[in-house]
């Protein structure tokens, strides 16, 4: 590559790294506790915990659980009934209106083994704070899209970093760390080494992070596309006067999808259903299919299954992006490895900032010469 070409790639790497660095360091720091949210949640009181089961406890119907949830919130309506993947807990989500936004909703967990309510997890705690900061910096959709843009810059920065790595390492062996030279050379070698070994992990976490920021857009597209298509014959029908049994809706769904488990039920009139249907979302029981939801539409008046389809590819990609971003799919050992790689990523970002602070005193041309000469550092 010519010196001019190297200079171009160097400048691309410099600016696509510098612009998002602050946000990427914030994402790495807030992401650390989120890797262990399943472990930290119960300790911090931010996740519902199952009580000891009373000896005479008997499972209750979902209809009975919903009745209890509504009796506790008499001025509200049911929006969703969500099911914990790992514990027999159902979360009854009620709100003042069917189309109320999530911040107006109220979450009541129930023990499915007894039908008894259990203490609701604390909202607005440490993990919620970290998640909000990590997802959208408390700015909702604009915050999400901004962080998605920072993620795209990260991907360009990684690509340009690989390009400038080649001339720099021309005369150096892999893993060269010149610890006895100046602080700047030491950190330059640490930056190059830590960056090149974590590259695949960084690309996967960065790319899935960008995909995750598109969550609201993907949900909107699905509602306008597949959901609208599935509910089209019912578009002009009035809402049901009396809702059919929720337990029957679930039984009908599981009979049609026998190897699946319940994930969430959206009530008629809510954002993820039609005015006329229960949308019963189920997931499979293999490691991959357990991450993928499938909607079954149950007529809210007759209790009959009207449609059930696999979700489109773009939605499935979104579902699989979440575990690949948070590393919560391979047990505690994978989580520990994920956390260590996250710390390594902080080292790459931090050393990049350190090098930039030192480089401000030196013209870019000098640093480009450093690359062209194959790592022969111009002090």
């Amino acid at each position: 590559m010519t010196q001019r070409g190297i200079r171009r790639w160097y400048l691309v790497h410099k600016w696509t790294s510098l612009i998002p660095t602050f946000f990427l360091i914030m994402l790495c720091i807030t992401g650390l506790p989120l890797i262990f949210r399943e472990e930290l949640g119960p300790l911090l009181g931010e996740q519902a915990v199952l009580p000891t089961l009373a000896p005479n406890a008997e499972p209750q119907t979902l209809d009975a659980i919903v009745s209890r949830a509504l009796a506790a919130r008499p001025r509200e309506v049911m929006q969703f009934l969500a099911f914990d993947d790992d514990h027999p807990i159902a979360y009854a989500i009620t709100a003042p209106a069917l189309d109320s936004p999530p911040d107006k909703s109220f979450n009541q967990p129930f023990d499915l083994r007894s039908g008894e309510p259990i203490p609701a997890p604390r909202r607005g705690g440490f993990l919620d704070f970290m998640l909000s900061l990590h997802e959208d910096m408390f700015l909702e959709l604009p915050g999400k899209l901004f962080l998605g843009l920072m993620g795209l810059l990260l991907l360009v920065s990684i690509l340009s970093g690989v390009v400038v790595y080649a001339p720099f390492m021309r005369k150096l062996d892999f893993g060269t760390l010149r610890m006895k030279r100046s602080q700047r050379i030491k950190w330059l070698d640490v930056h190059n080494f830590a960056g090149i070994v974590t590259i695949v992990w960084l690309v996967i976490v960065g790319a899935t992070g960008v995909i995750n920021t598109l969550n609201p857009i993907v949900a909107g597209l699905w509602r306008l596309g597949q959901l609208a298509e599935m509910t089209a014959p019912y578009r002009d029908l009035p809402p049901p006067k009396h809702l059919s049994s929720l337990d029957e809706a679930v039984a009908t769904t599981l009979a049609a999808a026998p190897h699946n488990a319940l994930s969430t039920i959206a009530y008629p009139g809510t954002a993820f259903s039609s005015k006329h249907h229960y949308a019963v979302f189920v997931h499979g029981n293999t490691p991959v299919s357990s991450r993928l939801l499938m909607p079954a539409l149950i007529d809210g008046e007759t209790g009959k299954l009207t449609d059930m389809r696999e979700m489109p590819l773009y939605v499935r990609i979104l579902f699989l992006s979440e575990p690949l971003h948070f590393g919560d799919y391979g047990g505690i050992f994978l989580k520990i490895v994920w956390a260590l790689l996250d710390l390594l990523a902080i080292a790459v970002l931090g050393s990049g900032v350190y090098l930039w602070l030192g480089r401000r005193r030196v013209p870019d041309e000098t640093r480009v010469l450093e690359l062209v000469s194959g790592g022969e550092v111009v002090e």
Partner: protein
Amino acid sequence: MSKVPLEQRARLWRIFRIPVYIGLLSAIGLVAALVSDGPADVLWTFLVAAPLAAVVFVSVR
């Protein structure tokens, strides 16, 4: 035929050989851990940890 001269290709391979191996191990581990379940996850986690192994190796040598 690629326009990259043989000598340059050999040099690029020398520079990127180990990072490519580490990246491949990581990628295989990341995907395999997603599609597998149970004790095999521990094996795949070792592959995901390839970059950490490289850091430890370079630090102690």
